[in-house]
């Protein structure tokens, strides 16, 4: 027995469908799109309830965040955001960036004054001295101004550095820790800056054990989805590090996402990151096939080839990093990849490969070529995550092998200047994240935030791909800018395609799921520089309305 029909009216519906471009009404029944057209067209299906809430708004297909990490949700649940970048929290409130140490100390004092248990550590995340003005380290001297007795632990945005106060140094017995990442002043005393996990670990265990992961806290799933939903996403990818193969974690995830008011769909990649061998990867991935629910699905298996470009650990082709000529680190050995990639390919899995710099991408392409030569597969949709330094020749090889990509377009905005000055120099920075060339050659590309690395905000990501402007206002590589239409397609249909879900989501078409994003203004009509500022009124997921605020 089919359920009741709801017709949503809008000022304009942008379908992103290849055949029919626009409409004013969409009829929804049982979470599925029944008709798209005008009110009369929708009426052909019989009685309906007309929902005029969004009659003055623009309806677009639900935006899809194609690469993010559940860690974002855990951080919101367990720590205070105190970074320099503006971020919306799970309540939908904008947390303004704190861009100098004085502002940081003030905010921490505020948080501290509201804490009742005097022994509870104050844990924060997201700080990034490189984005502060002035650039200055965050040491125990600053943090002791907040409290000398309550342990304070601030995880930096890179997740590779932490700043702690004297109380934490004492509790964790740093006097006895010799790891070189424990920075010291001229007198030999720790400054409170801890670089890399070896230096951070005793502090993490002593005062921020929640950050270690494997948590089954339900709030992480809700926060993860909610932060994305408040910025207009209806689907968000959990990009691979989570342990869904662990029964306790899986049941926590299923329980959290089964709630009717769970605000977005999560598509989770299978874990090829912390699972060591191909056999276990395949076994776990096969076991999770079809194990999800309406809001949680498993798709693809994520492997990591190299590190991060801003951390100088991405694997570059010559001449390497600017100035030093050095190269980054492999996450898996190329010799292993030559057997792992074919094994996953042969098992019928979709491979999602983190390749930040171009040598990692070249290696992955080489491994897929081996796999295809041994066992040709069509429509596997293996895709590269980040692919920041892809060029025309790599992209053409990708086309011939059927490899696609989601690019890290946000990098140009947040780290464009940093890359120009410190990692890649002028030319390679201007060529970063080449969305226009990729689309022209037929690579299906999306773009992503990689939250918590940068904030999840699909409109901002779309804006970055369309404008390629840094935070300082410099345009990097104008030839690689894409039209607003193409950028919107990247964040909707193309992302759905990468997730093998373009038959269900990614455009507004009869028979697809009723996932929409509601905007105050038309992203295809406003000046492209204004797209990121378009207010998001809310989302509709499977026909159910979720307000933004």
């Amino acid at each position: 027995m089919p359920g009741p029909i709801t017709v949503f009216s809008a000022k304009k519906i942008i379908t992103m469908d290849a055949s029919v471009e626009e409409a004013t009404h969409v009829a929804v029944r049982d979470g599925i799109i029944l008709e798209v057209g005008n009110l009369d067209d929708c009426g052909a299906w019989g009685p309906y309830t007309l929902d005029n809430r969004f009659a003055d708004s623009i309806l677009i297909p639900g935006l899809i965040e194609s690469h993010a990490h559940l860690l974002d949700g855990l951080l919101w649940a367990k720590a205070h955001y105190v970074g320099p970048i503006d971020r919306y929290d799970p309540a939908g409130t904008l947390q303004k960036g704190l861009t100098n140490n004085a502002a940081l100390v003030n905010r921490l004092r505020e948080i501290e004054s509201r804490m009742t248990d005097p022994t509870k550590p104050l844990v924060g995340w997201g700080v990034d001295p490189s984005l502060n003005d002035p650039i200055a380290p965050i040491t125990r001297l600053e943090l002791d101004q907040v409290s000398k007795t309550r342990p304070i632990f601030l995880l930096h945005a890179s997740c590779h550095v932490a700043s702690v106060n004297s109380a934490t140094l004492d509790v964790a017995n740093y006097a006895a820790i010799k790891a070189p990442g424990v920075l010291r002043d001229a007198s030999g005393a720790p400054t409170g800056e801890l670089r890399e996990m070896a230096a951070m670990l005793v502090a993490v265990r002593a005062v921020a054990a929640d950050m270690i992961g494997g948590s089954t806290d339900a709030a992480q799933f809700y926060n993860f989805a909610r932060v994305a939903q408040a910025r207009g996403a209806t689907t968000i990818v959990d990009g691979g590090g989570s342990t869904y193969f662990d029964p306790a974690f899986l049941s926590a995830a299923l329980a959290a996402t089964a709630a009717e008011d769970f605000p977005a769909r999560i598509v989770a990649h299978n874990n090829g990151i912390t699972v060591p061998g191909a056999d276990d990867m395949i076994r776990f991935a096969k076991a999770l096939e079809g194990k999800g629910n309406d809001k949680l699905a498993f798709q693809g298996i994520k492997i990591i080839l190299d590190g991060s470009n801003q951390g100088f650990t991405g694997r570059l082709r010559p001449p390497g990093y600017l100035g030093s000529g050095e190269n980054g680190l492999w996450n898996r050995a190329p010799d292993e990849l030559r057997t792992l990639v074919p094994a996953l390919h042969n098992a019928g899995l979709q491979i999602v490969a983190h390749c930040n710099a171009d040598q990692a991408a070249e290696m992955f392409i080489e491994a897929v070529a081996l796999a295809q030569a041994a066992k040709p597969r069509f429509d596997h949709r293996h895709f590269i995550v980040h692919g920041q330094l892809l060029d025309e020749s790599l992209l053409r090889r990708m086309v011939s092998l059927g490899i696609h990509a989601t690019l890290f377009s946000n990098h140009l905005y947040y780290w464009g200047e940093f890359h120009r000055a410190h990692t890649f120099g002028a030319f390679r920075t201007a060529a970063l994240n080449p969305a226009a060339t990729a689309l022209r050659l037929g690579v299906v590309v999306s773009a992503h935030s990689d939250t918590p690395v940068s904030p999840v905000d699909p409109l901002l990501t779309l804006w970055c791909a369309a404008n390629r402007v840094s935070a300082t206002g410099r345009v990097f590589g104008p030839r690689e800018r894409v039209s607003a239409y193409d950028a919107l397609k990247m964040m909707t249909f193309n992302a759905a395609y990468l997730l093998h879900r373009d038959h269900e989501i990614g455009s507004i078409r009869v028979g697809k799921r009723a996932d929409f994003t509601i905007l105050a203004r038309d992203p295809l009509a406003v000046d492209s520089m204004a797209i990121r500022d378009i207010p998001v009124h809310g989302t509709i997921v499977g026909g159910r309305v979720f307000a933004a605020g």
Partner: protein
Amino acid sequence: MTRQIPVTVIGGYLGAGKTTLLNRLLAEAQNVKLAVLVNDFGSVNIDAALISSRDGETINLANGCVCCSIGDNLGLALHDLAERPDGPDRILIEASGVADPAKISHYAESHPRLALDSIVVVADAETVRARADDKYVGDLVRLQLAAADAIVLSRTDIVDAETCRAVRTWIETEIPGARLAASHDLDHGQMFVTRTFESELPLDGAALRAALAALPADVVRAKGIVRLIEAPDRHSVLQFAGRRWSLEPDTAEVGPLERNRSVIVCIGLAGSIDLARLDACFAGVLPSALPAALIDELHQGALRS
């Protein structure tokens, strides 16, 4: 403070022979409780007869050794070992084939109960030169070799003597001062031998420094607590690892007749270290008689206390 557990990092590129070496060390360890942290149980191949029990992330051996899986967090696995009431005598970490062993060694100093002993990098005599020229991993292989306190050449039994010599020469050229050993030289799984030098009399600092600078390349590590003629009121701490060494006065003052003894322990690669040469090195350091002035000083100090 409780005794620190020495930690050795075993690095080297994928397939270099790290696990073969670890398997042997585990199987043949005697009178020493080793704990070995490995990336993947699948690759260790411990004789079932030697296994006494197995639970989740740990395999317990009848000889008291344990083999633990690193899982997804090396630091946690390592700290877990450090905090066991019945901890191991020595920890060996198998670094992943793509890791920079120097970075992994930082974990050996990440806990009050752990101390870095040395970095050993395994290199496959047959393939290391080709790997070092590979466009994907050449820089990594060189980085790993350069981080080593000692390089163990594996598979020297399957390459001919000429190739073996050529590889040794190549490594010595690429990594000046490299300390090399061939894995099949390693007797009975004893990767290291130790030589202890003791003296009841204070040592001549200048002679000791000269000896340290001239130690044979096979000495991987040396440690010592010594009393020097130049600073008789305190102990000096000697540290020698790889190509770096230090000899510094301890902060605490000691009574003149209290704990006079100087002890220096040298650790070298079994099968490769030339003990006679090492003895010759220290021969000039151990004094045959005390300078008269010092005897006076000691006597006066002894009277004062």
